[in-house]
Every structure is written in structure tokens, then in C-alpha cells.
């Protein structure tokens, strides 16, 4: 296992774990949305890393790779990158909607904590403090 592979997969696993942990254990709406975006980043990184090829450059032709002819064998796979571009934009749209719902929650309750969402594990009185 190369160092690059270790670093990339390590970051993906770490981001995914942090995102899921945050979604499950945080009650602050902003932190929940942040965890969601962290999980999204993990998925995007995973998709881009699938298209990576060792020792090749970004999928843009320039003077080095030659402007005409096919640069097969010199560049990485552009398709996952294009798909991730779409995924990022869709993720941005959902995050924006989630944030405006959080604004509405704050305006009607005066807090960003999900009070009643306590799974019965926390005493209601303690949460209200």
C-alpha cells in the first residue's frame, strides 16, 4: 500500500466517520448541517480518488501533452471529476435549504438546539437550562 493511497483512504474514512458521528450525536442544527457536509466531502473525495491514476497529471491538455491527438496514458480519468462537480452543486443546494430551515427554527424557537430530540436519554429539564 503506497503512502498516497494510505493518506487518501485514511482521510476518506476519517471524514466519513466524523460526519456520521456528528449527525448521530450532535443536537445543534449548525453542527448537524456541518456534519452532513463533512460526510458529503468524504463521498466526493472517494469518487475523485477512484479516477486517480498514479503518476498522471490533471485532465487538461497544454503544451506538454500536445494540443492535438489523444493524451491517453498521460492524464487521469476526467469522468469522476465531472460527476463530483455535479454532486458538489447538488450538495450546495441541499445545504442552502437546510440552513434556511435552521434559520426558521431559530426564529420560531430562539435556539438552534433540537430540544425535544433527546431519544429519552436526557432529562428534559436539564436540556431547557
Amino acid at each position, binding site marked *: 500500500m*503506497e503512502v*498516497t*493511497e494510505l493518506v*487518501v*483512504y485514511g482521510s*476518506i*474514512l*476519517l471524514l*466519513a*466517520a*466524523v*460526519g*456520521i*458521528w456528528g449527525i*448521530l*450525536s450532535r*443536537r*445543534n442544527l449548525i453542527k448537524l448541517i456541518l456534519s452532513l457536509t463533512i460526510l458529503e466531502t468524504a463521498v466526493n473525495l*472517494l469518487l475523485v*480518488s*477512484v479516477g*486517480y*491514476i498514479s*503518476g*498522471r497529471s490533471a*485532465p*487538461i*491538455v*497544454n503544451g506538454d501533452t500536445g*494540443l*492535438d*491527438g*489523444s*493524451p*491517453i*496514458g498521460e*492524464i*487521469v480519468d*476526467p*469522468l469522476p471529476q*465531472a460527476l463530483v*462537480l*455535479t454532486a458538489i*452543486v*447538488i450538495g*450546495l*443546494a*441541499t445545504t*442552502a*435549504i437546510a440552513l*434556511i*430551515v435552521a*434559520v*426558521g427554527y431559530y*426564529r*420560531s424557537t430562539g435556539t438552534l*438546539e433540537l430540544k425535544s430530540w433527546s*431519544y429519552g*436519554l*436526557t432529562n428534559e429539564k436539564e436540556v431547557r437550562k
Partner: protein
Amino acid sequence: MMERYDIHRSIPAILLALMVAATIFYAFVEVGFGEPEVDKEDSVSNRFISNSTQETGSSNFVTAVVVNYRGFDTLGEVTVLFLASAGMGAIVSALPAGDKRKRPIPPSLILTAGTRLVLPLIILFGAYVFVHGHLSPGGGFQGGVIIASGLLLYIVIFPEWKAPHKALALSESLAGLSFAGIGIIGLAVGGIFLDNVISGLGEAGMLVSAGLIPLIYIAIGIKVGAEMTGLVARMKGGDA
């Protein structure tokens, strides 16, 4: 309220997170990292890399895939962004009014003067990124977001500024219409929706090249910039 560290909630969450991470690891450890799958003749990427420079004239393969081969998909993506922006407007108008707090501390001279100095440069850079989408990393979405980030800075420094929502909506609609209109040009001339009918125009690697791709990316850049600015301004509230 301080968020207490809730051990009851955290331990199952940590266990589940580790399980998911382990599943991802076992699923992808076999895929092979950095292996040249594209070199296989029958792969889709191989088809794109082999022909896209001739077919689209774009130097950036990601742009060629996003705007040319998957152009219809990108039109849908832009629609999703529009829906998010419109949905936000609808939600904001239904929200109870925010409580009017006391005025925040006014920003210092350095911040206001610096913002006025930097804002045109940020907008110029955003425009550069989306005009050169077919030549360099970046494109319409990235350029539009750069422009919106500049206006976000302006909104943060000058909170009294009322965003011109009507002008933003107008430029957004016009840009969206021109994207669809470019698609219809392709349908009328080439017989395929979003067909890149003038792909041979200009020399590959120059600013005027890649046919309709720069025009589509300019439309996307203006649309995303206007949408994101409206979104950020609505997030500030007060002018719902």
C-alpha cells in the same frame, strides 16, 4: 446553552461511524488505487479522452464532459440550483420576522475601504474563471461562487445594503434562458439538443475555441453568481 458531552449518545454513534468506515474500506480496498482503468479500449472515459479534443475543441476534459457530453445533465443541475434558490425565497417569506437586535459594532475604516478595494477584483477574478472554463481549472459554477463570495464579503461588512433581488432574479432568468436557448440552437442546426455546432471555431487552447462551451459557461457563471448572491442575502434576513 452549553452542549454537554453526552456519552450515552456518543458511544453508539462512534461504533456506527467506525462500522461504516470499515465497510467503505473493505468495499474499496479491492478496487485498486491509481490503476489505469481508462486505458481499456471499451471504457467510457477512454472514449471521452480519445475524441473530446477533436469533437469539442476544449482543452479541459472535465469541462468537455460537463458542458458537452453531459450538457443536458448540467442543465438539470442548474435547474436544481434554481429550485433551491426559489425554495429558499418561498421559505424565507413564510418565516416569522427575526428579532431586531441592537446594531452590531460598525466595521472599521480598514474593513470598509479594503472591501471596496477588493470587491471589484474578486468579481473580475470570478469572471476570469468562468470565461476560461474550457482552458484552465474552473468554470461557470466555480466562477459564479467566487463572485458570490465577494458579495458575501460586502454583505458582511455593510449589513444595511439591500440586495437588489429583482435585478438578481432578472439576470438569473436571462442567463438560464440563454443556456436553454443555446441548447435550442443546437437542436435547430445540428438536430441534437445542446449540440456543439461551432466546435471547430478557433484554435484549440486559445480563448476563442471550443464553440458553444465558453458561451454556456458564461451563462452558468452569471446564473450561479446571481443565485448565490441572492441566497446569501436572504440568509442574512431582514429583507424577506
